[in-house]
């Protein structure tokens, strides 16, 4: 099935309580699949087509703030509209899942695939000092697997989680093993797991208020320090990445999502020509695998950050490498997906690999 369809099926299967979204290409299959599956008749999951992305993200704020596992999905311009709500979620520590099946920008851009929202996803995206936990799937299988993972992490840390996909992974059809059915949490389980949520004040407990507002500077600073402490914990515990043939690598490609698939093909071609290239694929874009890239930069002659954009993740790669080895970027924009051959040529040119120029 398509990556977008896998997201919808995984949501129903992982005990998701509600989906709120607005149609936009190339991800409308998520809402369409949910509407066709009618999970409100089986698991009781709510599915609602909202009036806008702005309303959708605020429905996620409301649902997550009330302790429920809720999600929305959109594509780049729609996710841009959601940034205010995501900042409010971060400030009020509301869990929830946002799926971005990226298309090219800026502005209305194109409906073709892109990875141009890396900055937006990994730098907060809205106002204030905050991060969103970002997972980058590179296959339909991971589209399915990351839904539950994103919810788990989001509720564990009370942080909005994002699945940063792209038009390739969203639209490509692959075999997928859907996760086993997990029931939605009962009211008792929600009250136990989310004692902070606005679920209605039971007995004499203090009232629960979901808010990002605090007018006293000292209290607001304290809240911000608490958020920063949480981000530190997440950085220490939740970095995820995959390595392919890095043990003996002389050159390293860093790529995520669909770009990592292209890189894998390029690496097998390069290996057959005797060039030892490895791949590091960040699975969490925030927190970023800074330490591992740092270690690998001691080993390799050069690192190429391969992205379907003008060069965004390359900044994080450079911050990890700190000049230990040359770092270059290769990518395309406008909805054009580079080929493995183009990537090989870029690598040869950037690191003067003569064996490839012959």
């Amino acid at each position, binding site marked *: 099935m398509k990556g977008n369809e896998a997201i919808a099926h995984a949501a129903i299967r992982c005990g998701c309580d509600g989906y*709120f979204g607005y149609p936009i290409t190339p991800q409308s299959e998520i809402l369409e699949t949910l509407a066709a599956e009618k999970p409100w008749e089986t698991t009781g999951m709510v599915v609602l087509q909202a009036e806008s992305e702005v309303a959708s993200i605020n429905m996620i704020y*409301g649902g997550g703030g009330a302790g429920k596992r809720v999600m929305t999905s959109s594509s780049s311009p729609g996710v841009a509209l959601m940034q205010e709500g995501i900042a409010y979620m971060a400030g009020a520590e509301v869990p929830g899942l946002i799926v971005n099946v990226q298309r090219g920008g800026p502005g209305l851009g194109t409906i073709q695939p892109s990875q141009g929202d890396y900055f937006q996803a990994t730098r907060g995206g809205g106002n204030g000092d905050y991060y969103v936990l970002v997972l980058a799937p590179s296959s339909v299988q991971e589209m399915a697997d990351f839904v539950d993972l994103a919810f788990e992490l989001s509720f564990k840390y009370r942080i909005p989680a994002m699945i940063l996909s792209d038009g390739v992974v969203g639209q490509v059809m692959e075999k997928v093993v859907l996760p086993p059915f997990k029931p939605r949490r009962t009211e008792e389980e929600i009250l136990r797991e989310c004692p902070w949520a606005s679920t209605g004040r039971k007995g004499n407990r203090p009232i629960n208020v979901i808010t990002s507002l605090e007018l006293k500077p000292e209290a607001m600073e304290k809240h911000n320090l608490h958020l920063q402490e949480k981000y530190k914990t997440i950085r220490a515990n939740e970095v995820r990445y995959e390595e392919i043939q890095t043990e003996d690598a002389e050159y390293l490609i860093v790529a995520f999502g669909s770009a990592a698939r292209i890189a894998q093909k390029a690496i097998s071609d390069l290996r057959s020509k005797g060039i030892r290239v490895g791949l590091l694929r960040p699975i969490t874009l925030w927190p970023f695998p800074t330490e591992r890239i740092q270690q690998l930069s001691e080993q390799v002659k050069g690192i190429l950050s391969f992205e379907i954009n003008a060069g965004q993740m390359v900044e994080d790669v450079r911050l990890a490498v700190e000049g230990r080895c040359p770092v270059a970027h290769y990518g395309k924009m406008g909805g054009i997906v580079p080929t493995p051959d183009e990537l090989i040529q870029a690598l040869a040119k950037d690191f003067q690999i003569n064996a490839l120029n012959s």
Partner: protein
Amino acid sequence: MENIISPENIVYQKPKLLNDTDMHYCPGCSHGVVHKLIAEVIEELGAEEKAVGVSPVGCAVFAYKYIDIDWQEAAHGRAPAIATAIKRLWPDHLVFTYQGDGDLACIGTAETIHALNRGENIAIIFINNAIYGMTGGQMAPTTLMGMKTATCPYGRQADLHGYPLKITEIAAQLEGTCYVTRQSVHSVAAIRKAKRAIRQAFENSINRRGSSLVEIVSTCSSGWKKTPVEANEWMTDKMFDFYHVGDLKNTVED
């Protein structure tokens, strides 16, 4: 005196849900009275454990400091979207929003209209004082023609500013609304009627009868640059002339 204050002589008590925190509202403001009515109604309905309020951006942003129930504080204008999700996910709850005219009828018009049109089982309490109170008295979507504010200092003119929006009349046209009413809290009789309206709206939410909108035509003495007494007079004189008080729609059988 001390002999008079005894349980058998008590004819009125502050609702328990309204706590003792000093309110930040100006003298003569309608918010305090409406807060009290909300607390009374929730208490009378015995709905404390399933009530969730959504507070706006505006003067009532801190409504959660005064009424001891669970709350969510919304981004400017988005309260009906937040309430939509809470009610759909907790269908037995009493879910209401508390919004001013700038929040509900300007920046949040889309969320307001669509939540009401979908027939979300929520109650919207709409405080209309025809001005932006918290930011210091700027023009609102509900500012009357000719009315002076900080951003229309020579009075609202149609060619420059457009016309005041009667969003409650629009709400009454929508299939999803079951109860739409306009009230005020400037006199004891008006307060009693407003309380009945809030009670019906809250019962509609609990019993999932559709969307309810209760507009409260309100005073803003600070924003209007009037004394509380003058503000009440100006409201009954000028505001009621344009915003007619009474039920606009009620599809619910008593």
